[in-house]
């Protein structure tokens, strides 16, 4: 890693640790010197707070650690702490995230750079603990930055990037990090943990500036504006979301310079796409079975690739449209579902269809609903989906949406 020489304190190095995705984010809280953290239990997100609690108990993380009495309170506590100048962290899963929904709604509107972890989980009823993306996707229209990670390493790195982008004065929006329940939150892998001195170079202190709620700065936050100003304020939030694209790119460039780890295109990862004829698109830990299946199919001579989307908000419309236009057909795998939506498909498929509308070339798109509620996405599932995309590429008639791996 040639970049190492640029670090101001080369004596310090990363440590390798065997930790889970949740633990990786707890470690990021420590590295980022978070000031106020609130916890409330729900599986699978609560594992992050178990690690946070241990760090606090052992004196490794100096923060106000508050166990709240509900998700709603949890998110309101950190919202107000952030307004008073504290770096904050919080999170939830499934219906717990929905219980906080009122607080989630006002957080971007108040320009609060809260970083939250969503341990993605199916929404009740009936109860299911496994991964489904509908919980986090529910905030897609509210002004949250929204990212999905794939590995514990990416979880740690993305959390640091999330604070950097969210707390940038040009953005000041909350960021939710989607971590697939169980598959990522509970699975351990080797993670390179950077020293805090590197993190300090990357992540400046949170400065709320003239928006700080303090007696020296006697502002009134969220007065009633009604029809006089609401449209302008919504537009401001949208401009912040637009600026986040550039701030994100800068953050990833700096991240590579300081930590020596590169993520290439910040918005999505391309896997074996160079000469691919068809690709599958998905988010999160879906990549594991899909990548295995792609490697197997490649050995059989099938030119198939995979695009894993990281940043869902802001949505990388131009970049994704340019990339996906290269292929003869696209299959989108949703770990979520949007009832009554166009083509009866998932949220991601709808977004990608919309992104492709103005693309120079519009490949046929096949939507797949797969792996809901934590059901395993198997290699045969991926082969089945690939076959349907290949048929679409060959011009054969296919349906717009398929439920894969479902009992008939």
């Amino acid at each position, binding site marked *: 890693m040639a970049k190492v020489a640029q670090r101001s304190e080369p004596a310090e190095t990363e440590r390798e640790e065997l930790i889970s995705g949740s633990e990786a984010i707890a470690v990021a809280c420590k590295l980022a010197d978070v000031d*106020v953290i609130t916890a409330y239990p729900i599986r699978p997100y609560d594992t992050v707070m178990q690690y946070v609690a241990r760090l606090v108990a052992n004196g490794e993380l100096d923060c106000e650690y508050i166990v709240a009495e509900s998700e*709603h309170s949890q998110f309101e506590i950190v919202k107000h702490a952030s307004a008073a100048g504290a770096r904050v962290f919080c999170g939830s899963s499934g219906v717990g995230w929905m219980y906080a929904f009122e607080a989630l709604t006002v957080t971007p509107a108040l320009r609060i750079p809260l970083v939250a972890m969503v341990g993605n989980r199916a929404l009740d009823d009936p109860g299911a603990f496994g991964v489904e993306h509908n919980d986090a996707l529910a905030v897609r229209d509210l002004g949250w930055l929204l990212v999905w990670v794939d590995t514990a390493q990416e979880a740690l790195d993305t959390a640091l990037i999330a604070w950097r982008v969210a707390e940038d004065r040009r953005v000041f929006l909350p960021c939710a990090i989607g971590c697939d329940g169980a598959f990522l939150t509970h699975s351990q892998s080797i993670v390179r943990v950077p020293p805090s001195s590197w993190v300090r170079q990357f992540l400046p202190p949170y400065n709320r500036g003239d928006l700080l709620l303090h007696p020296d700065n*006697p502002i*009134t936050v969220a007065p009633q504006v009604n029809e006089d100003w609401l449209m302008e304020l919504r537009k401001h939030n949208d401009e912040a979301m637009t600026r986040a694209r550039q701030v994100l790119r800068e953050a990833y460039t700096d991240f590579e310079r300081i930590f020596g780890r590169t993520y290439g295109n910040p918005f999505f990862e391309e896997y074996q796409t160079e000469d691919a004829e068809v690709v599958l698109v998905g988010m999160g830990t879906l990549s594991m079975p899909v990548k295995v299946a792609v490697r197997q199919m490649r050995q059989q001579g099938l030119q198939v690739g995979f695009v894993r989307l990281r940043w869902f908000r802001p949505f990388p419309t131009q970049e994704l449209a340019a990339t996906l236009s290269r292929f003869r057909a696209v299959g989108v795998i949703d770990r979520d579902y949007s009832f009554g939506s166009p083509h009866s498909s998932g949220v991601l498929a709808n977004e990608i269809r919309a992104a492709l509308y103005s693309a120079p070339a519009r490949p046929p798109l096949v939507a797949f609903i797969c792996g809901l509620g934590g059901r395993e996405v198997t290699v045969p599932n991926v082969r089945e989906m690939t076959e349907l995309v290949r048929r679409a590429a060959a011009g054969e008639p296919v349906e717009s949406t398929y439920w894969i791996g479902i009992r008939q």
Partner: protein
Amino acid sequence: MAEAIATTPLPTLEPFKGVKKVPLGEYFTSGHRTCQGCESALVMRLMVKAAGPRTIVLGSTGCMYVANTTYYSTSWVVPWMHTQLGSSGSAGLGTAAALRALMRKGKLPTEPINVIAFCGDGGGADMGLSAISAALTHTEYNFLILLYDNESYANTDIQLSGLTPYGAHTTFSPPGTAKRILHQRWKKNVAGMLAAGHPSCRYVATVCASYAVEMMNRVRKALSIGGPTFIHSLDPCPKGWDYDPMLSHELGELAVECGIWPLYEVEDHKLKLYGRTKGIAQGRSKRRPVRDYLVRQGRFAHFTDDDIDYFQAKVDEMWERWIIPGVIPFASEITNGRSPD
């Protein structure tokens, strides 16, 4: 890094000794749109006057949000932030936690900063109750939650709340031909519940702005005692209660004199009746009949003599059969005739 502190420093707020000693400075001033005779606006003004300029106020949704923070004409001189209807507890807690973290870590200068979160009866006694209850258990943070109780959801058209008195006419409980009394529930005893249920909370009080200096001194004590504290204020509301706005103060006094609104404070678990309530409890003055209070308000205009008698009987019970008159419920029969130690 700043010197480690156990909690944020507390202000020294001596009680005002008489109305002439109250400073003239105002931190809740012109610009609000409250109704004529609005006691809640007075409560806001006295509350922040008692606290002084080094104060952050958090306001949950309610008429004191809608009427006081119109963009371009906010009436708050101190920093003020809106919080959700059920979140006064969370707002106070989060703000106090941020101050504690930032001061401890040397990211903010260490100094006493008052944190006051207020809520109406709807936000405080209905959906926000669990958050207030939780907040009162976090003893390491200094903040005050003030419940301004005008006994209805007054900003949305006067709907009944968990603190609306028995039988009151609201838009959710109009007197009708089949049911003259649609709202049959008795008002919750919020301050008593919070005082009894949160043994680590050092200060809970009831106040009435008709007794302004006493009210301000309760706010000063709550802010300077340390930890989370709670004050419940009864606020006559000309619009919701349907009376001539000039009678606001008088109705507050009547609520106390009729024994409907006992004034008390629980300081370090020691309960103390004060003001007119103390005089009633000690037999120095008599409770006035509740009729005097009820007949002045349009919201009870549909009451018959029987209804007034029922109301009187409930208030009598509160004074004659409760363990602590007007404060701690349950008939003395439950304790087998023993008075509490």
